[in-house]
């Protein structure tokens, strides 16, 4: 694999790649790494969602990549600008873990599952099928998405490597 071909997606960040470039985001805990792909024109996008909804934002101008409800529409638009056709998009996602188990189940503690639920709601709203997911449980994940094959590779400390 050519290292130069890796596009890094930070926390609360989103990127678009094409023609075989790899989108990568590291250390997903409760955050969700969601990918969209147009297989025909090989355009892919990845977002590293940190929080479920911008309704909880307490900042006047916020980073739209951070929230599921604002980042996913923005990613769709950026991919469309690259020539992709939203009607052909398919999605995959990983992350949304609950890193620590607590008996007091406050909303903050359940942030992982809430991120996953919110991402799914957005996909439904835009009629994008979710092909596969590796979400929940209690461990961190690093993910790479290949914009040629549409394969999502997931690495974790305990579970090794998985492809979905």
């Amino acid at each position, binding site marked *: 694999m050519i290292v130069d071909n890796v596009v890094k997606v930070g926390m609360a960040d989103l990127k678009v790649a094409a023609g075989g470039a790899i989108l990568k985001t590291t250390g997903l805990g409760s955050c969700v790494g969601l990918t969209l792909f147009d297989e025909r024109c090989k355009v892919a996008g990845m977002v590293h969602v940190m929080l479920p909804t911008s309704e909880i934002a307490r900042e006047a101008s916020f*980073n739209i990549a951070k929230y599921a409800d604002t980042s996913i529409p923005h990613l769709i638009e950026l991919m469309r600008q690259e020539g992709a056709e939203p009607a052909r998009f398919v999605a995959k996602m990983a992350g949304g873990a609950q890193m620590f188990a607590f008996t007091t189940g406050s909303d903050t503690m359940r942030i992982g599952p809430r991120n996953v639920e919110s991402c799914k709601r957005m996909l439904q709203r835009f009629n994008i099928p979710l092909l596969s997911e590796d979400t929940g449980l209690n461990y961190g994940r690093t993910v790479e998405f290949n914009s040629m094959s549409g394969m999502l590779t997931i690495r974790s400390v305990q579970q090794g490597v998985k492809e979905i």
Partner: protein
Amino acid sequence: MSMNPLGSLEAFKMDVLKEVGNIGAGNAATALSRLLDKPVDMNVPTVSLIPFEQIADKVGGNEQVVIAVFLRVEGDAPGNLFFIIHEDSAKRLLRNLLSMDVLEEGYSEMEYSALGEIGNILAGSYLSSLADFTQLYLSPTVPAIAVDMAGAILSYGLVQYGEMGDSAVLIDTTFLEGKEEMAGHFFLIPDPESFNKIFSALGVPNE
């Protein structure tokens, strides 16, 4: 744009927070040195407003595998407290403390629970000295332990900040064991709303 929960008087407030880290970690270092029956030193705490993306860099990057004991602080000044050590330091700690024959790879049930208990003692002493110092009521949740990627673990402590910006205030103290860097960190990440409570408890004028 990220908002700075420290407001004005920044340098002075940073110094106050350093003292908070100093007192908390100082007490924890004493507890650890009693456990090990060896001197344990620590570095002067650093206090910084740090972008989310860079927090894990403090312990070796997003994918660095670390052992973390996490507890949520509830009460007058809520926040998140992490005790983080690298695997080689953890193994050394287990060998020194329990004279255990530790596994080369992974952790036995016994090692895991010993590490959880060490983290529990240290985090508890950090917090109780902080409560004494500030006279604030601070109540820890039962600590949880995880062995995983630093990025995945630490992002959990940033949710309260996520709602208001892309950076968090981090009070970081490093432990040293003798001359050996134990690479143990205490990360205290008070909730944004807790700063005014901490400052007013310590007599720092509010703007």
